[in-house]
């Protein structure tokens, strides 16, 4: 198995580099388990670390009831965020640097202290949170036509591509993370709305899930890491020429352009 894990990791890395999607792993290999998929993801991350890239945080995916139903799963998944994925607020991203990009808005968390599973509750997460920040996550699939099952997206680093981080950091005093609202605009047209509760009931609950899940792999959520707890609405496809803005009310907004 170990050999094939490495093989798949390199295949997905090459697909990302060449911007050429590959056939879903689950279409070719029925033996693959979710555990194998996380090993493939770790393998690919290790290759990037060896190239000098750094982990800046984690993302939780499949946190909405709709997405879980679509992939027929009952738990979220996660991926790694690396420093070369970070995009400044208001910056321009080349659409053709990705295969089939989509975008979604999330309430990013920055921790004031490490969170070590197991038994982390969302109360622990809120207490350990330094601040929250508006983010846009650009997702992309290295799998043909986004025809993914849970195993495929886990192996593909949670389909992550880039993260745009807003400029306003807010401490949680007085913030209601369940009702924190979000409006997503494409070229000034309102496309979607949502609130914090869309991410597993409470975005901090998704972070708690992550801390406990990572514990199974001997990984700790670190102080100052950026954590994306899941989308507040469905993902929106983007193309060159688009400007995307997510407005989070009192928490601020975040924008990105595509060319």
């Amino acid at each position, binding site marked *: 198995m170990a050999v094939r894990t490495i093989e798949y990791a390199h295949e997905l890395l090459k697909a990302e580099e060449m911007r050429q999607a590959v056939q879903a792993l689950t279409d070719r290999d029925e033996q693959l388990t979710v555990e194998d998929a996380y090993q493939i993801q770790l393998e690919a991350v290790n290759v990037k670390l060896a190239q000098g890239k750094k982990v800046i945080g984690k993302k939780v995916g499949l946190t909405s009831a709709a997405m879980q139903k679509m992939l027929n799963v009952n738990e979220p998944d996660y991926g790694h965020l690396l420093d070369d994925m970070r995009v400044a607020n208001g910056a321009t991203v080349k659409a053709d640097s990705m295969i089939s990009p989509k975008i979604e808005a999330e309430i990013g968390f920055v921790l004031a202290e490490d969170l070590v599973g*197991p*038994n982390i*509750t*969302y*109360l*622990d997460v*809120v*207490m*350990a949170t330094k601040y929250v920040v508006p983010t846009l996550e650009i997702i992309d699939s290295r799998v043909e036509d986004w025809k993914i099952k849970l195993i495929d997206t886990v192996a593909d680093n949670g389909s992550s591509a880039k993260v745009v981080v807003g400029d306003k950091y807010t401490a*949680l*005093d*007085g*913030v*209601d*993370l*369940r*009702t924190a609202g979000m409006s997503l605009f494409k070229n000034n047209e309102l496309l979607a709305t949502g609130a*914090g*509760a869309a991410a*597993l*009931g*409470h975005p901090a*609950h998704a972070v708690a899930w992550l801390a406990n899940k990572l514990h199974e792999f001997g990984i700790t959520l670190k102080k100052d890491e950026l954590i994306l707890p899941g989308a507040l609405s469905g993902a929106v496809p983007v193309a060159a020429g688009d400007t995307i803005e997510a407005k989070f009310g009192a928490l601020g907004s975040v924008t990105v352009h595509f060319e």
Partner: protein
Amino acid sequence: MTLLTNKNKEIIEYLYTAERDVREVIKVTDEYLELTVKDAYELQHGLLARKLAEAGTKTVGVKLGLTSKAKQEMMGVNEAIYGYLHSDMLAFEWEAVCYSELIHPKVEPEIAFLLGKDLQGENVTEEDVLEATQYVAPALEVIDSRYKDFRFTLVDVVADNCSSAKFVVGSKWISPSTLDLGNVGMVMSKNGEVAQTGSSAAVLGHPATAIAWAVNELGARGKGLKKGDIILSGAITEAIAFKPGDSVIANFEGLGSVSMYCK
């Protein structure tokens, strides 16, 4: 002492299995008349250790009970009580509470305090409590005495971890300095109808007073509260019973709301 230890083990097993098997039992003092409040806290501690070992949970804080004059008079006592909260008692606004896991549950509205600093001592004041508190939030505590008909003495209820079962915390967390916690109005509704109203003043005059009392009690036993702990400061009104299909929401002046649904 050895005799007491054996007896303690027996009582702990009795209460532990009652909760695990969702079964009401005859109160402990019917058989053990001689138990003191001090013994009861030892039993509570033993019960906690048993649960932590069995379920792999962790302690997340404490809850206060008998914090209203009315309840204290009813029980013929003049002080409050405390019990421990475990991670598996945490329930969520976004997941239903299962009636089948409970015996005869009731719910009561409280203000939750979340500590930004450790808090330990024997001369802790209301000001110290507020100073150590990072956030306050609205909470609902589900109580579920393991005793038949909710009938018990002070010793019984302390041994039974103060009837604690579940708790739900609202999602708006604010600094305690931003409002007068001594007089926060609260309206609790069940299925849209007002069930209880009250003010946080019902909690020993001020919830922080109740917490200072509990911290000093813990301090006298060489224990304390830790940064990150949650404290349920005591019921603002009497508890109300609920059944499958019921929704309960408590709205707090300036603090937002907290809700639960039972299935």
